[in-house]
């Protein structure tokens, strides 16, 4: 029997807050063996990060910890501050979620790596520099000898995460705690980072404690899985058992809530999805009856009502950001059409320009070239008064539920704000509309007088959707609306979203990086890369019969929550990449 490198024994953590003590972790025990990857999964608030931070002593000041954390038999919690400081980095090291903030932007990469080595007496001076270069080469930074002199901002996100990993392995730690190491990265980069972690683990025989919410990452990496819920372990076991034959109902629900990218011929692909235009027409007709506040009928649009113009149409659109009078073009030659009642998924990795397109449609960014037609009218060219009238046809849902609602507005005011801005209805009719919408997003009408901070992320996102629908828009812009949510919450919000879409019949530009989410919702998909369209077509065409190699790469990189399938996909992806190279 091998000794565990890191073991948690009956960990209890409580936080003292204004409203009394909150128990975040209620007696959690598990071990990490050398060379083993233990994945701790759970949704936000499950205590997964808090539990693992007890080993590093990184909890905030108001936390009280009970229990024992043993690192190779030594109790970490009983150590003095200085002892524990020596432990950090040397025996336990950490890889953080956000590579942008994990490195100090004003120090060269060389300084930061050398610091890690010198602090723990591993190497000094020129020797430390040599070691650092070796480390960078080891984690796959090309041209390490010259690039080590550069600053963090000169590296891409994935490369920065590689540097963070290099710092983590600098002193040959026995355990690496990786807290959501790939959550902030694009799927293709995520796959590369996971490959790297896997290699390093085998080479160094390090135990890895992987904290994640992504079951696909778990299937890709983990040997054992610990499932946490509300500060307790609900299930633990080998990865194949947990993911293929989960026992606890919570684990099953978690797995069922994962949106899946369906392969061609999947039985769940309804035939209904194919007949998009038919349904779009039907819902376009159905728009007027339930549109109690749909006052958009004047200004010549009524004459063209027999042939409904596309809800959104882009013709040779180019977008640019201006900085000190120099324009950087970020989107080129964009052409697409969203018919009324149709959901178009806009997918791409960070920097592809997908959110920029959403901004331009919302009027937050000027269109540099081309036409952006909303209901047949070129919005950027309209005089400001008409543009304001047209804006009531557009609703918006943003990504971050914490930032998209004004913290000083009660929910009722938030939902009715579009009506106030467009001077519609009186106090009573506004409140009636707010109640109706709250009902539609399945929240009790008592939240009208509550404030956003009292609601959870998923609930706030539902409020965002309600606000977007207040004026019965014909077009909804959803910019990554579920990316910041937990899987089960995401599933609930997506269900609600498609239900509302069928009921209200709005067209939607759905921006997302998650192909599975787009697959679940969209009728059409457009893939973007570096500001250009790579591929567009129906969801089926693009996601199941992709023609372009970039789309294929994206599809191959998305991990699935089944260890065996994922292992197969991994080899397939490597073959694909080799073929492309």
């Amino acid at each position: 029997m091998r000794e565990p490198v890191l073991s948690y024994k009956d960990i209890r953590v409580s936080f003292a807050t204004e409203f009394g003590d909150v128990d975040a972790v209620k007696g959690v025990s598990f071990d990490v063996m050398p060379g083993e990857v233990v994945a701790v999964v759970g949704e936000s608030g499950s205590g997964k990060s808090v539990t693992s931070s007890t080993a590093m002593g990184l909890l905030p000041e108001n936390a009280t910890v009970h229990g024992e954390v043993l690192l190779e038999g030594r109790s970490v919690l009983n150590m003095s501050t200085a002892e524990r400081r020596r432990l950090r980095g040397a025996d336990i090291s950490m890889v953080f979620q956000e590579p942008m903030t994990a490195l100090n932007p004003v120090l060269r990469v060389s300084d930061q790596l050398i610091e890690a080595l010198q602090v723990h007496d591993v190497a000094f001076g020129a020797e430390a520099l040599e070691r650092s270069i070796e480390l960078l080469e080891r984690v796959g930074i090309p041209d390490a000898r010259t690039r080590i002199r550069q600053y963090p901002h000169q590296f891409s996100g994935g490369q920065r995460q590689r540097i963070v990993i290099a710092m983590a392995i600098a002193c040959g730690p026995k355990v690496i705690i990786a807290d959501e190491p790939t959550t902030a990265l694009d799927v293709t980069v995520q796959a590369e980072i996971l490959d790297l972690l896997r290699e390093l683990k085998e080479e160094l025989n390090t135990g890895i404690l992987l904290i994640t919410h992504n079951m696909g990452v778990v299937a890709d990496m983990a040997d054992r899985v610990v499932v946490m819920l509300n500060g307790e372990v609900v299930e633990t076991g080998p990865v194949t058992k947990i993911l293929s034959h989960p026992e606890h109902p919570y684990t099953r629900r978690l797995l069922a809530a994962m949106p899946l990218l369906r392969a061609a011929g999947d039985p769940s692909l309804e035939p209904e999805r194919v007949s998009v235009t038919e349904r779009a027409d039907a819902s376009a007709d159905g728009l007027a009856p339930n549109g109690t506040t749909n006052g958009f009928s004047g200004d010549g649009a009524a004459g063209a009502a027999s042939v409904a113009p596309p809800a959104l149409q882009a013709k040779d659109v180019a977008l640019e950001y201006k900085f000190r009078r120099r324009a950087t073009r970020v989107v080129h030659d964009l052409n697409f059409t969203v018919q009324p009642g149709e959901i178009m998924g806009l997918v791409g990795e960070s920097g592809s320009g997908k959110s920029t397109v959403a901004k331009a449609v919302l009027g937050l960014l000027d269109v540099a070239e081309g036409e952006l037609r909303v209901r047949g009218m070129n919005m950027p060219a309209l005089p400001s008064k008409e543009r304001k009238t047209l804006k009531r046809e557009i609703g918006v849902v943003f990504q971050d539920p914490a930032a998209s609602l004004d913290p000083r507005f009660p929910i009722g005011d938030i939902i009715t704000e579009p009506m106030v801005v467009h001077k519609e209805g009186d106090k009573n009719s506004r409140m009636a509309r707010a109640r109706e919408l709250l009902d539609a997003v399945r929240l009790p009408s008592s939240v009208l007088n509550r404030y956003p901070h009292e609601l959870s992320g998923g609930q706030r996102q539902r409020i965002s959707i309600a606000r977007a629908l207040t004026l019965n828009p014909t077009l909804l812009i959803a910019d990554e609306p579920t990316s910041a949510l937990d899987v089960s919450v995401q599933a609930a919000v997506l269900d609600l979203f498609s239900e509302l879409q069928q009921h209200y019949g709005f067209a939607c530009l759905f921006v997302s990086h998650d192909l599975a989410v787009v697959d679940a919702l969209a009728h059409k998909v457009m893939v973007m890369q570096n500001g250009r369209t790579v591929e567009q077509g129906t969801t089926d065409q693009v996601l199941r019969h992709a023609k372009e190699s970039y789309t294929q790469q994206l599809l191959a990189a998305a991990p699935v929550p089944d260890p065996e399938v994922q292992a197969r996909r991994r080899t397939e992806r490597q073959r694909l990449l080799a073929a492309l190279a």
Partner: protein
Amino acid sequence: MSSQTPPIPPEDVLSAAEAEDAKLASAHRSYSQGQLVRRRFFAHKPAVVSMAVLVFIIIISVTSIGFSGQGTGWWSKSFLATGITVDGGRPTMFNDGFLGDHPFGQDSIGRDYFAMVMRGIQQSLVVAIGVAFASTFLGVLVGALAGYFRGWIEAVLMRVTDVVIVVPLLALAAVFGAYAQNLPGGTLTLALFIGLATWTGTARLVRAEILSLREKDYVSAAVAMGAHPARIILKHMLPNSIGVIVVNATFAIAAAILLETTLSYLGFGVQPPETSLGSLIQNNQNAFTTRPWLFWFPGLFIIAIALSVNFIGDGLRDAIDPRQKRTGSSRPGWRTAFGLLGRATAEERAGTQVKELSGGPSQLQMPAGMSDHGPDFGHDPTDEKRDS
């Protein structure tokens, strides 16, 4: 996956979304932001005590001699009436009954110093609040416009701000003060003019706040729904920067009291026969060695007012800014307010430093158990966290 997973039996285990909804339905007590702020403010002991002190000072200064200062309150003496100097003008407090005839003594021409100090407090507070109001209004206006519109509006407004900043505050305030002397309205006019010199800090802070709020999604959402800039600034941005504004205004009050004191001391502030705490000190500076009470009483009140306003500002900042670090439910006490740490924390800090030296990088590392000689400081994890 879905084909392999057996249907989930009805269970007491809720998904996160359902659990959240259940929690929302069961929560009955709802705190608004304002209520939360009030709760935190009233838990801040120094701020609450300071507020009591300030209110007490305001009440006695107003009720004692009345708004006019002519002895219309419970203190029958006017701050202008001269009289015979009794006992060299020595304070009669605690000597002749509780207050006596002249509790704070008399000045050289026999005016009652208590009435004068009370009048001084009134005038100083008028100046302070007037300055705070004027500078906050101007600063918020400039900062919000510059931050929201950017471009040339920002360039012009911020360059104007820079110009005001490079002129020494005291010189500017003195010029404005001298100018205000010829205008009607007395002290309040003076206060508004001084405000013209002190708005720059607020403008810069508000601009910075607005710049960060501009990037918030709820502001983007408001722009996208077609809201007018005035609505966005007034309804979304300023209420969300109210923390910065209010806190800055309280500190402006404290600064204005001291600025008025300085101006009066230099002779550019409140003009005789009107009086203020600053001019009382200026008039009686020569008497400091012989009749120190003429110096001490106004001085003490300046300190008391400035200190309590500062503490109130501290409390407001702690209450409004949720990012403020606070150790759980324990509130800032008097010791922390004055920058004094708990003895245990101090000892522990000293202890760890000693241990660090003995176990530093270049020295022999001691076995884990052996470096722990002295008192057992670092063992309780809660204790240890407090000093980081």
